[in-house]
């Protein structure tokens, strides 16, 4: 008799742990032939709140790490992801990819992480400025992370799209609450396992699965989320999101029309999407030498 495979339970990822949704609910996404992909957590508003609490708690530690260290950790995610290529390919195939397209998507995902790993200690150098103000002051403007960033990950591009929206926020020192693709959620939870074993501190990334129709208003309205990256389409959803965001003046980035499978679908401006600019003034005492000048 052939061996009975052991099936994986997909749970959500909050504060470095894998709980089930507090609501106890589930849903069954299907493949192209209508077969169930498994029982996924149908996360609730309470799960979102828990995830934001975990993220906020992780923010001081993550944002104060040296940029170089964040780069090392993003690179580590790439290393561990590369090692689990087969598993991701299998999930992408189950969700409807061809094997060839799936392999390409995983490779692109790894390379994209390496790309943003490199940016961690560079975007500040490229974009910040020393400002030549007219008075005797040393004046400079630097970038700082916004804080808790909610990401509504792309619906179709379930791995490379997810990574392409997640990595720039992490590179810039933000913490994330992420809503996975509703119809193709498998890779998001497996990616959470990769994150958990890649020196990413618990709470820095939190992953929920479930219905965007149910969760989107709460993402928009939550008072302790600083910014939302919306990776999907839909004029009505976008307007509702923008309206809700006004509650605490969230910054909203719309990235739904990008093709994340293109090799060049990455740039440092995606990091700046979740950065604030801080300008500091400091006086300069003016005493010169006797113009020795050499």
């Amino acid at each position, binding site marked *: 008799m052939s061996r009975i495979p052991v099936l994986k339970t997909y749970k959500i990822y909050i504060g470095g742990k894998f709980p089930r949704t507090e609501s106890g609910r589930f849903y069954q996404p299907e493949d192209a032939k209508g077969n169930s992909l498994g029982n996924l957590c149908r996360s609730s508003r309470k799960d979102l709140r828990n995830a934001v609490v975990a993220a906020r708690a992780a923010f001081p530690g993550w944002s104060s790490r040296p*940029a*170089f260290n964040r*780069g*090392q950790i993003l*690179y580590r995610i790439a290393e561990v992801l590369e090692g689990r290529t087969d598993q991701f390919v299998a999930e992408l195939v189950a969700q409807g990819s061809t094997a060839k397209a799936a392999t390409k998507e995983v490779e692109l995902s790894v*390379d994209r992480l*390496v*790309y943003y*790993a*490199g*940016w*961690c*200690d*560079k975007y500040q*150098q*490229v974009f910040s400025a020393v400002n030549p103000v007219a008075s005797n002051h*040393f004046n400079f403007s630097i970038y700082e992370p916004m804080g808790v960033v909610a990401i509504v990950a792309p619906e179709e591009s379930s791995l490379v799209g997810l990574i392409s929206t997640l990595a720039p926020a992490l590179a810039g020192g933000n913490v994330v609450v992420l809503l996975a693709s509703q119809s193709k959620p498998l890779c998001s939870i497996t990616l959470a396992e990769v994150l958990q074993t890649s020196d990413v501190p618990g709470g820095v990334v939190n992953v929920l699965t479930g219905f965007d129709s149910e969760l989107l208003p709460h993402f928009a309205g939550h008072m302790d989320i600083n910014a939302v990256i919306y990776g999907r389409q839909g004029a009505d959803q976008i307007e509702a999101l923008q309206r809700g965001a006004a509650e605490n003046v969230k910054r909203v980035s719309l990235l739904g029309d990008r093709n994340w499978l293109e090799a060049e679908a990455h740039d*440092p401006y995606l990091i700046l999407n979740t950065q604030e600019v801080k300008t500091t003034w*400091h*006086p*300069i*005492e*003016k*005493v*010169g*030498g*006797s113009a*020795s*000048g*050499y």
Partner: protein
Amino acid sequence: MLKNKEQERLALEFSQGWSYAPAPESTDHVQLQERYSLFIDGKFVAPSSKKYFPTVNPATEQVIAEVAEAGKKDVDKAVKAARKAYDEVWSKMPASERGKYIFRIARLIQERAREFAVIESMDGGKPIRESRDVDIPLAANHFFYYAGWADKLSYAFPNRRPRPVGVAGQIIPWNFPLLMAAWKLAPALATGNTVVLKPAETTPLTALKLAELIRDSGLPPGVVNIVTGAGATGAALVSHPDVDKIAFTGSTEVGKMIQRAVAGTNKKVTLELGGKAANIIFEDAPLDQAVEGIVNGIYFNQGHVCCAGSRLFVQESVAHTVVRKLKDRLKTLIVGDPLDKNTDVGAINSAGQLKTIRDYIALGKSEGAEFYESPCALPQAGYWCRPTLFTGVSQSHRIAQEEIFGPVLSIQTFRTVSEVIDKANNTPYGLSAGIWTDKGSKIFNLGQQMRAGVVWANTYNKFDPTSPFGGYKESGFGREGGLQGLAPYLQFD
């Protein structure tokens, strides 16, 4: 007078009852061959002259290994290999893939960090604490940092279409052997150049271990070539007609020779040369911290540091206190076995350098400055110099003008800000400066007034891959590190 005597009685007596048990780093995991050949086109090959020279442990005077002496023919072979690798492989590779090779090298150094640290201390005499905590991690970090730049160059130089230069000839000094190799190789490779690197003749081993590691990384053959030898080997590399760019770190004297040698050619040049940095202590500085900064500034790596804070300027009102604290602190420095984890000051790099330092100490005494050295005992074998300082130094003394490259500090005093700016800038060098004060507005003023490429405020001898390093005036030109460190290896439309 009475007060001084009292202070002398109360001075801390560290020579009594303060002995540390030896804590030597283990060397049994280190893999060294008896003889190293030249690394050309991905393989170790014997030099055409068949000549080898010994490399010596300066703490024991024992020969560690023999290394090949590369002649003109060998250098030519290395340059040809670099050119071929540039034309056929490296310049055609997508930038992101190039970057991944460099990330690999960074990771391999991290994995083998301890072995490299031990060899660095054996070959160069620097304390294991420095090679373990500074040299090797920084070297790995440089590769990691520049790896990320490979596919981002158009953001560093917008609207300029950056392209590699071609084959780079790189010559590095003996004071930070692996770190200097990393400073040279990482930006050159990230920008798409191929390289012939010549390490210093007294400290070639970590560069040769790096060659092994680069071979293991799968980097295409010929992209990095490492040739060992002394001045003649370097001269052959500088004058080779198919080298597009020279990067040199070393003395101002040799730097000037190189600048003359490439005159009239199309070779790009960067020079990181000597220094005689002013370290300035104001009366409002946190003095205990400042004393630590002075010690770090001049005794770090036995003073074999081009940016060493070798000229100390102390504001007159606190000069007595600072010098007293400094002398006390000198007594606590542990001089000895570089492989001992307690050691603060290791061995002088070579017999030749020890003679240079001793000549300068004799000169300082004969010029009339007041001499003080730590009373510590020194090992029998090996090359050693006690941490030393001179007070009563004037601007005209040669020990205040010339780079000694050893643990010898010249102390002068000043009264006004204007005066110390003049004194500090009154040197042909301009590599670095230190400022110690509680007042931010003074820091920014002094920072602007110093004619030097790096200014440390309330700290000293700090290095980071993201931070450009290099000199004004006769300390050379070009920067290494940071975004600016890419430019010397690129050409633009």
